[in-house]
């Protein structure tokens, strides 16, 4: 039992961090959010070259041959950097295509792994109104999807089925307007009997991986929020003292770090239980999602408060985290849904 990263994992995480610090610093994230999406292109391509999208894909299929643990480290760093782009959909597509046979799918896999195809994730509950799978065609009405407007592919999870749709296909409608979270812009997606390739993968399995990785992203962001607050509170002075010396601010920072630590420990444990296929992995993932959502949402709000008037400005980065926290809470199951799942387990016990 060891919940700390190995020396190799630490080195991987450090190299990802330094990659993101140089290729996707906050100034570039801001530029992308403020209307220059092309700023993402170079780092995205470079991430593909470095194998970031296929970390857990076996090396005989062109991947890096690591596991979901290394992906977790990647997503923690993505969260820390508040990286824009459809990372989750693309990485899950790489998972879904890992066992693919046939040339077309192998080519797709290569495109996805190389960052040539960006993949937006659509999670449709089975029986959701307006969704329908018929032969090789898929229909879906008016769903809010992150990063859909700039993706080449859509990865559609529907019940336990996994499908890929090309956004250029006839019948695909993607309309985007003003969005709440500009670092993860949503679009309204409608699919009208579009061609949809069924992949030999389980949507439930992909949802589990997606939950673990998005929790890791939230953990990275939550920890980053502690750093941002501590840094500001250490230098900003009022009444002739750094504001971090006031208990109100100090204790708020302490609570932020408690939340970030709890969320991180829960996420690491859940991801390990997923890797090891433990019986309680769904429970552990629900635990992680609840704790991570709490940490991200609360830390983002507390970070605004700690920055005072500055925290309320566009110029300060605090608001991007506030908005992303709400994006996180809204995907792959709200805290409410995960709490209900835990409660059902308690009732059955």
């Amino acid at each position, binding site marked *: 039992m060891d919940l700390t990263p190995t020396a190799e994992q630490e080195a991987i995480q450090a190299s990802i961090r330094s990659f993101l610090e140089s290729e996707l610093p906050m100034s570039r994230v801001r530029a992308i959010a403020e209307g220059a999406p092309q700023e993402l292109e170079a780092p995205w391509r470079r991430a593909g070259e470095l194998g970031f999208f296929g970390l857990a894909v076996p090396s005989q299929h062109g991947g890096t041959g690591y596991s979901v643990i290394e992906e977790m480290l990647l997503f923690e760093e993505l969260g820390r950097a508040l990286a824009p782009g459809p990372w989750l959909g693309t990485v899950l597509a790489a998972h879904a295509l890992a066992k693919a046979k046939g040339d077309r799918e192998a080519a797709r896999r290569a495109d996805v792994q190389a960052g040539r195809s960006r993949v937006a994730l659509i999670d449709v509950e089975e029986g959701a109104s307006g969704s329908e799978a018929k032969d090789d065609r898929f229909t879906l009405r008016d769903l809010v999807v992150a990063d859909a407007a700039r993706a080449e592919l859509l990865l559609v999870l529907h019940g336990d089925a996994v499908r890929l749709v090309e956004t250029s296909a006839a019948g695909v409608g993607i309309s985007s307007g003003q969005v*709440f979270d500009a670092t993860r812009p949503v679009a*309204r997606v409608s699919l009208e009997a579009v061609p949809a390739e069924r992949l030999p993968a389980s949507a439930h399995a992909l949802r589990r991986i997606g939950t673990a990785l998005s929790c890791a992203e939230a953990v990275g962001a939550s920890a980053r929020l502690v750093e941002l607050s501590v840094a500001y509170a250490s230098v900003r002075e009022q009444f002739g003292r750094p504001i971090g010396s006031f208990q109100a601010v100090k204790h708020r920072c302490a609570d932020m770090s408690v939340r970030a630590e709890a969320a991180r420990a829960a996420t690491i444990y859940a991801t390990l239980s997923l890797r090891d296929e433990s019986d309680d992995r769904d429970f552990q993932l629900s635990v992680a999602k609840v704790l991570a959502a709490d940490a991200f949402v609360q830390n983002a*709000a507390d970070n*605004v408060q700690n920055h005072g008037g500055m925290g309320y400005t*566009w110029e300060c980065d605090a608001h991007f985290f506030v908005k992303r926290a*709400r994006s996180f809470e809204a995907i792959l199951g709200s805290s409410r849904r995960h709490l209900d799942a835990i409660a059902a387990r308690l009732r059955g016990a």
Partner: protein
Amino acid sequence: MDIRFTPAEERFRAEARAWIEANKPTDLPDSRDLAVRRDFDVAWQRKLHDAGWAGISWPKEYGGRGATLIEQLIWFEEFARADAPEPATLFVGLNHGGPTLIACGTDEQKAEHLPRILRGDTVWCQGFSEPNAGSDLAGLQTRAVFDGDDLVVTGQKIWTSFANIAEWQELLVRTDPEAPKHKGITWVICPMDAKGIEIRPIRTMSGHDEFCEVFYDEVRIPRRNVVGRINDGWRVAMSTLSFERGTAFLAHQVRLCRMVEDLASLARVTPLATGAALDDVEIARRIARLRAEVEALRSMTYRSVSKTARTGVPSAEASIIRLFFSELQQRVAALATEILGVDLLDLDPAGSRGRSDADPVRGEWAWRFLAAFSSTIAAGSKDIQRNIIGERVLGLPR
């Protein structure tokens, strides 16, 4: 003790309600263009003025309504209940600048400014906060030295609304850097067209330009613009911070109460896996608690105004009400975003047209949520409010 109003007060309420309903503008400009907004505010204020409703809490001798505290409370309640628009760009003049002149101004200053403020002819802005004097307002450092008949001002102010359209600014400057920090400040009327003033907009987290930074480079202001005594500006500023003595707070309470009702409506039309969100016992109880809290807020405000009416001095509970309100507002907005879930993320009204018909304010929640962050920061953060309650209301040691 009584929760009923007197027959005369009820008549006042009926009169106010009827007038507001008949006269309130319904064509609130959609534009964020401040010139447009100013024209709108001026027209509305002129209407109020001509009908004798302007300056509800101003003394009659200065053209105000001279209403009693209870009448003021009724007025603000009816105003908010009718969702009548606040004259936003005129707020500082009507509620800060004007009242300060009434309390501390010279006859000349009063004659020049008060009628114009009341009619909406002039826009005022506030120059109190500085980048390094927020919570610690008395630590302000914008310097002013006397040079002949002028004050020469150099420094910077921040969080100034409407600086770019205002004619006048209530400005706090440090005129004695050697004195203890509360003792060397002067309150002065700054003409915003003076040479040496530069204004830069500040974008807020919602992406809108709500505030300005104002830079002063040897700005000359006539000495006669000083209000109150030189170096006594802190007391001058404090004397009007509680000018309306809590009555205007009723408008906030009424609006927040409507926000809670909106929240219940949102929950009523938002489907979850198990039915409408309002049928989810947990969500329903959380909304019910917010509804209870906003009702308690009204009772607290009534009680605070009652105390002031009885004693003549502002009630010490004002900071308690402020704190309770600001955190409550955040809880209301946060619960709405939770209920909205993924629908929060799309601000495009066209995209969610199907849903928005059922709930006209659905698209507003994102802005309300972001705006609510300022309520525990602006005009004394929640930490400062708790210090004030602890020290001034409860008498705990500093």
